């Protein structure tokens, strides 16, 4: 496998919520190891798009192939895709009745069938990676938002996915906690992992993205490497968005 083989292929994907068309035919190919930032105004379909990649949303039209597996109605294919992808949510979605450690061992033990001791060793490794190992036995409710999101990142890493999906990982955080979470994501991005990050953090996009994708009204309007994307946006809509988001 070379660095250029596609790991995600999205062809003409359409998603409707009732009468509202959230995705109006999106085409996107992501290479293995590529770090992609998806941005756009709210309601542009960017979250819906990455939620379609691990089938948290079911596309109404088009094809999605992840790591060679086509998403359809086959439950086994869906679970196979989900084992290869992991999602970090805006609202963390940690399991409140489980300790931090148990949050991380849940999937390795019940999904991957790993022995508990091994799963715990793996969990501790990733908790150390996100600098929160000392809270392994705490319940998520005891942690700050930034700490919870770092645990959520570690939980996603614990299934050792091919692709990491981030759905506005810093949007629900207090400003002083955004940095600790972004630092962790930047560290991960430097390790050549395939990452698709929906975010408004343009500084992050500039620093680590291979490609920035701008969406509006259910379509990809513009994409390109951050250098050209930020310096020379081609579309008026992109320019307007960037001016709004960079000025505040």
């Amino acid at each position, binding site marked *: 496998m070379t660095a250029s083989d596609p790991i995600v292929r999205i062809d003409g994907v359409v998603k409707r919520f009732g009468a509202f068309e959230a995705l109006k035919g999106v085409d996107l190919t992501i290479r293995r190891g590529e770090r992609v930032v998806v941005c756009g105004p709210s309601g542009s379909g960017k979250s819906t798009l990455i939620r379609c990649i691990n089938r948290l949303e079911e596309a109404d039209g088009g094809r999605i192939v992840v790591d060679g597996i086509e998403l359809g109605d086959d439950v086994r294919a869906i*679970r196979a895709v989900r084992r290869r992808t992991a999602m970090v949510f805006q609202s963390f979605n940690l399991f409140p009745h489980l300790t931090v450690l148990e949050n991380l061992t*849940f999937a390795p033990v*019940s*999904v991957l069938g790993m022995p508990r001791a091994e799963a715990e060793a793996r969990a501790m490794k990733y908790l150390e990676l996100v600098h929160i190992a000392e809270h392994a036995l705490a319940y998520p409710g005891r942690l700050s938002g930034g700490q919870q999101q770092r645990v959520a990142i570690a939980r996603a890493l614990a299934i050792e996915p091919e692709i990491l999906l981030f759905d506005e990982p810093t949007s629900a955080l207090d400003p002083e906690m955004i940095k600790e979470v972004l630092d962790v994501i930047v560290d991960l991005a430097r390790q050549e992992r395939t990452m698709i990050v929906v975010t408004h953090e343009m500084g992050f996009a500039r620093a680590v993205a291979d490609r920035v994708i701008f969406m509006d009204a259910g379509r990809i309007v513009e994409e390109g490497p951050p250098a050209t994307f930020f310096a020379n946006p081609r579309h008026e809509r992109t320019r307007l968005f960037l001016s709004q988001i960079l000025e505040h």
Partner: protein
Amino acid sequence: MAAWLKRNFFSSPLSTALTVALVALAVWLGPRLVDWALVGAVFRTADPEDCRKATGACWAVIAEKHRVMLFGTYPYDQHWRGLVAVALIFAMMLASTVRAFWSWRLLLAWVAAMAAALALQFGGFLGLPHVPTTRWGGLPLTMLLFLGTVAGGVPLAIVLALGRRSDLPAIRMLSIGYIETIRGVPLVNVLFMASLMIPLFLPEGVNFDKLLRAQVGMILFFAAYAAEVVRGGLQAVPRGQYEAADSLGASTWDRTVRIVLPQALRIVIPPLVNDIIRAFKNTSLLLIIGLFDVLGGTMAALEDPNWSRFYAEAYLFVAAIYFVVCFSMSQYSQRLETSLARGRNF
């Protein structure tokens, strides 16, 4: 002190009036109650004549009749078996309140204890005479039926609640149909149907025990109500929890059993305990199909014409038994809620 009194008892004209009225009531009622319950009461006598002459309560009726009240129609010389069974059950209930004991071993201990209690009631081994279920009665019957109802009803309720939220229309319709039908019928009716109608549909010669039929009826009735309680809990678990489990590749089973249900059940502890307490008291309806639970035993005991006029004392005694069990359950559920919430703010 004065300020505290004023704030709590005399803060407004209405409050002052209520305080005065309640104090007057207590002054009027208190001495009469003490006179009746203690001063003029007869605590021990074998002769109902002594009670008739007394001005107060006749607690002696309890001493005289407690065997029938507590053990119903069970053979008199075998009452110790019921006593051991009830002691076993209460010991297990107490042990279950200790968090440190919570493991699969406790579950095994429960199965063993229930088997032992049932075996004691049945007899027919080691020289214990066999006692048919039609003669079981009193507190052992109440406790066994209650525990059977909860042990069978809670799992069934969970299955029904999950079924009602299933993606499969057939399962959903079946669950809804079941819940709505049973909820639309009074328990008395369910019990009558269980005891009288089920045999009509069974083939000739097949006849299963009246007590077992009643137990089945109580489980079915309890589950229909508890299913709606559990469903409420399932709805209270945020969608993000399902999504987080799904996104990690969890199967529907793992998602349900390890992530959603533990949270849903914790949310519904108060209403579920409410249903459980009601199930305990509903065992008294067994009376109408001819089974003598602890209340039925008391009514039977009062058929003795010598003592029948002292029904108030007897019923107070039974009420006290019900109250102690129900209040303990209620207190325990509150303690459980607090201890489960510790360190987890949700």
